[in-house]
């Protein structure tokens, strides 16, 4: 059977039509019912799938080449469309005419026109904001536009496409000013069609640093041209945010859409766009930016890049807190700023030190952490304070901050805000010798501040990529610790040793080697530490690589699971409450290989027989 071709299995020829194949399959399938003859049915089904797919291709007018088992090739020419198998036009019609159970008048009136899935957004964005009138028709245009974006067009791709189309309209002419403005606005509107884009800071950065967008924003006719178009609220608001300052959207009753009132005097606008424009205005001069502290004497191109970086930083600092005023113009003392935030957020009466089991307490604690981080962000984002360790120390001396520091979330939240290397280094310095700032192997460009490995005597693991060498080093550390403790190890030391071992396994991805995993899991000390309550409490807080977390979780208990943090891209082990810690006794038993167990048993038996024999005598 196994050497038969699909056609032989179905008793048809490669030239058979789809109808013949179906008929043959139906006949054979009834003889070999899947319930009673699963194996035969599977073969039939596989054969049917192959034959029918080829027959379908031929029915669609394609030529198929089939290589026979003796190596000869058969060319199966396309066949005329088989009317029996093709959807019959009249049957489709009739199903449409069937009287519906529900009131379907509405659905019948649907306009057939908007079938094209990828509609150009440009044509309909000006009437999008108009309210649908009560006509008996559903308009899915908004959904379609969203799909267009979901269909995979990245905003930048969309921008390129729009540029290309505009270019193709008059290939030999450069873009007119009006066109530039329109492309920029279309680009902006497109970003707003999908929340995945509009919530992504990178996409907005990309937008704001686009050459054409900068050109458009700096054109004298920009505002006038934009207001000719008429915008939706979201688009108008985004545009105002891009320009900054006192820009605001204005509703226009006549066109039922939004216009914008742009503030071209804002410092942000001048820094971001006017300084970078290369067409109408002179290239940027060093003095335009008040932000420049670490000035340099590079070429204008480098200066541009540098400025870009600064702008990103500045934006980040700006988005950290909406309430913050322009930091560069009027620097408020960090303490005063913190106090202001506390007052604004109604935290002045909140006492975090007496925990209460209610929702309010939890919510306020979370808000307090955020406020403290905002305080920190204020220092880090302000030129006057950001390089002075004095302010960081003042920050850490604050009673509330002292309390918040105890939370596990504190450092995590600091790291989430993505501060730069210098800031984090100063913070680590201020936090004390237990802390340091650095990168992790898999995120070389991202700096984190973290607590150093808990061991005081830093083991010399370095980069031990060889699992056996790692294990050797680990055993050496145990010996060292034993010598130091003069005999048995305390649970605390055991725990720290294992946690560090685990840390190295995870950090250098050594766990991926089977042998490393086996040595780790079979180590008696590891097994002992796994039974600790403390281990259970601590392990769930350790960020791990995904597969390692899974291995570890399943090793700990089969009911354990892992969760993935989208923000830090790390996994954590989740131990459900009902899961009990593994017990040591069971593990000890399995320590002995079965063969040794058998040997022991045999010896015991022999001794017993001997004793019995001796006694009998």
């Amino acid at each position, binding site marked *: 059977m196994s050497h038969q071709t699909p056609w032989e299995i179905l008793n048809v020829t490669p030239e058979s039509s789809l*109808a013949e194949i*179906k*008929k043959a*399959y*139906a*006949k054979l*399938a*009834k003889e070999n*019912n*899947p319930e009673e003859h*699963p*194996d035969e*049915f*599977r073969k039939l*089904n*596989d054969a049917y799938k192959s034959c029918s*797919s080829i027959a379908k291709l031929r029915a669609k007018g394609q030529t198929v080449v089939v290589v026979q088992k003796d190596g000869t090739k058969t060319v199966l020419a396309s066949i005329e469309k088989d009317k029996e*198998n093709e*959807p019959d036009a009249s*049957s*489709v019609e009739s*199903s*449409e005419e*069937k*009287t*519906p*159970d*529900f*009131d*379907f008048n*509405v*659905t019948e009136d*649907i306009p057939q026109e*908007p*079938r094209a899935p990828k509609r150009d957004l440009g044509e309909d964005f000006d009437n999008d904001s108009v309210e*649908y009138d*009560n006509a*008996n028709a*559903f*308009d*899915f245009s*908004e*959904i379609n536009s*969203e*799909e267009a974006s*979901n269909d995979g067009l990245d905003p930048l791709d969309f921008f390129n496409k729009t540029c290309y189309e505009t270019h193709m309209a008059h290939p030999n002419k450069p873009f007119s000013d009006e066109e530039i403005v329109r492309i920029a606005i279309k680009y902006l509107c497109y970003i707003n069609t999908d929340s995945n884009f509009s919530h992504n800071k990178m996409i907005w950065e990309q937008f704001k640093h686009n050459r054409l967008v900068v050109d458009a924003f700096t054109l004298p006719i920009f505002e006038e041209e934009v207001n000719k178009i008429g915008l939706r609220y979201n688009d108008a608001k985004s545009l105002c945010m891009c320009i900054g300052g006192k820009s605001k959207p204005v509703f226009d009753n006549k066109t039922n859409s939004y216009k914008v009132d742009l503030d071209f005097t804002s410092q942000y606008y001048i820094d971001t766009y006017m300084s970078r424009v290369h067409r109408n205005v002179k290239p940027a001069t060093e003095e335009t930016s008040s932000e420049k502290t670490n000035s340099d004497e590079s070429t204008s191109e480098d200066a541009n890049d540098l400025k870009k970086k600064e702008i990103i930083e500045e934006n980040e600092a700006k988005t950290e807190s909406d309430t913050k005023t322009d930091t560069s113009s009027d620097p408020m003392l960090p303490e005063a700023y913190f106090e202001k935030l506390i007052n604004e957020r109604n935290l002045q009466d909140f006492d975090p030190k007496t925990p209460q089991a209610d929702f309010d307490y939890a919510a306020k604690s979370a808000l307090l952490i955020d406020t403290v981080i905002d305080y920190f962000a204020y220092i880090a984002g302000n030129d006057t304070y950001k390089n002075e360790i004095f302010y960081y120390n003042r920050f850490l001396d604050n009673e509330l901050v002292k309390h918040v520091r105890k939370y596990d979330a504190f450092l995590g939240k600091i790291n989430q805000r993505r501060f730069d290397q210098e800031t984090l280094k100063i913070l680590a310095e201020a936090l004390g010798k237990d802390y340091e700032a650095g990168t992790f192997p898999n995120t070389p460009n991202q700096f984190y501040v973290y607590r150093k490995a808990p061991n005081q005597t830093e083991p010399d693991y370095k980069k031990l990529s060889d699992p056996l060498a790692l294990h050797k080093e680990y055993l050496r550390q145990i010996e060292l610790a034993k010598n130091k403790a003069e005999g048995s190890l305390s649970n605390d030391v055991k725990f720290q040793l294992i946690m560090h071992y685990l840390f190295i396994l995870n950090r250098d991805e050594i766990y*991926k080697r*089977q*042998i490393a995993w086996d040595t780790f899991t079979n180590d008696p000390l590891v097994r002992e530490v796994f039974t600790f309550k403390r281990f259970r409490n601590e392990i769930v807080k350790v960020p791990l690589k*995904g*597969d390692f*977390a*899974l291995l570890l979780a*399943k090793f700990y208990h*089969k*009911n354990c699971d*892992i969760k*993935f943090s989208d923000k830090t891209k790390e*996994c954590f082990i989740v131990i*459900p409450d009902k899961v009990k810690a593994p017990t040591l006794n069971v593990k000890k038993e399995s320590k002995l290989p079965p063969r040794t167990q058998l040997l022991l048993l045999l010896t015991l038996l022999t001794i017993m027989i001997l004793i019995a024999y001796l006694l009998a005598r």
Partner: protein
Amino acid sequence: MAIIGIDLGTTNSLAVCWKNDKPVLIRNSFNETSTPSVVGYDKENETYVVGAVANERLITHPNDTISEFKRCMGQNMEFMLNNRKETSVSLSSYVLKKIKEDAEAFLGEEVDEAIISVPAYFNDKARSDTKLAAELAGLRVDRLINEPSAAALSYLYSNGFEDQTLLIIDFGGGTLDVSLVETFDNIIEILAVAGNNELGGKDFNEVIAEYFCKQSGLVMDALRLQDKALIYKIAEKAKIHLSKSMSTIMTATIEGKDYSVSIDNNKLIKLCSNIFSKIKAPIDKVLRDARTTIDDIDDIVLVGGSSKMPTVRAFIKEVTGKAPNTNVNPDTAIALGAGIFAEIKNRNMDLKDIIMTDICPFSLGVATCDSMTGDIITEFIINRNSSLPCTRQKTFYTMSPMQESIRIQIYQGESIVVSKNLCLGELMIDLAHPTKEKQMITIKMSYDINGILIVDVEDKDGHIGDKVFMSKDTDLSPEEINKMRERIKAASILGREEEKNALLIARAERVFEESLEQERQIILAFLMQFKASLTSNSLKAINEAYTKLKDLLDNIEGRN
């Protein structure tokens, strides 16, 4: 001993039996075919309430009533009911127990076996949980049927088994399933399935409820549980009303203040654009998986409660360019299909020739280490949409020379990232003869129609190990299952006779909450009268008070 087909839905459950050579919907004690999938606990009478009574109590006793637990099937989520932790398994088994009782009363004989329909997109864990729930309720379930397959079966049963290709869209209360089905000569062949387990009619309700709050200046999170439930209820009502007319007005009294908001179908489309756009993705996926185009489809069949919405139908027509078939009753199609399938399983002579193949909705594979990068990735052996039964094999190599053992972890899912898939279990195999070269290992997987996966491992000398993964594998230990079984067996569910009265009381309490001062007084008076009559033991007095209260409620709610 009878066998029934059950559609265990997110919002409603239905059962079908075979009577007089045709599938018949089983009616419950209220003479209705659908039983709401809601479970509650009545503290006063210390009984569990299931179905219509529990549904009425959703507003008045939100803390003691649980609904939509099907959405959590297969996840270890816990609900609190009667100070006890309940899972979606135990809650489903209360519903199934109720259905079983109703079916037994309807048929007059014991029911011990059932075919239950599940969304095609349910993974193994969710499927085994469904089976476990049935087992706990005292029903033997050898086979589950995918909801779209059931819908196809009932469509074909009533329309004839012509040679055609159908696109079946099952848009229910909590799930969306799309499947492509080919039929000819009494053969039903499922070609592809796709779906979204977290999209359903409930999402429309939520959007409408949010819109109501936004328009009335209310903050949803700040509302009392009762008020929230009330808003969800009127949102659902508005949605249902919009199926029949272009616009509707939602009114509610919250904390003594009247609010009313109007909504029409165009507004609904605007509000729910996100939901609509999610409907399209599985349709595209199915067509792509089956390598076919919309032009090859002969008919589109819409089933599930949400497909009654004209906007949904219009949207389907919009994206496919074809008007959906309306000959199938969206509410009962799946249950009927399950009933027909139960009869096929019973080898009824009339249906003997119908052959239905199913497919596995997820890919199955093993975790492997990529030799180039060292990354641990999933290597798929059985791809999704393979017809069942299915056997496939693949060859792998050991990672290092002199390797002594191999660990084979079986995963279900579509992600290349191992941890994103569902782990079904693992095999540890010791290699008898470690060699200096890397060894070749062949892994063969067989997945059969009952959801049993057999993994067979061979090296160059032959068989070295195998393992059977039954769908029945659960995380629960036999003791835990036994404990649950005892609990469900012992749980007193409201009897069929008392249920009628309980429903009326629950309804009166709900209407009381929904109405204003004057009406409240009347309802209260009638309700007290009715409650008093219940203790009097006089059948005549009870009937009188029952009719009086019922007429009053009908009047207030406008259903005469």
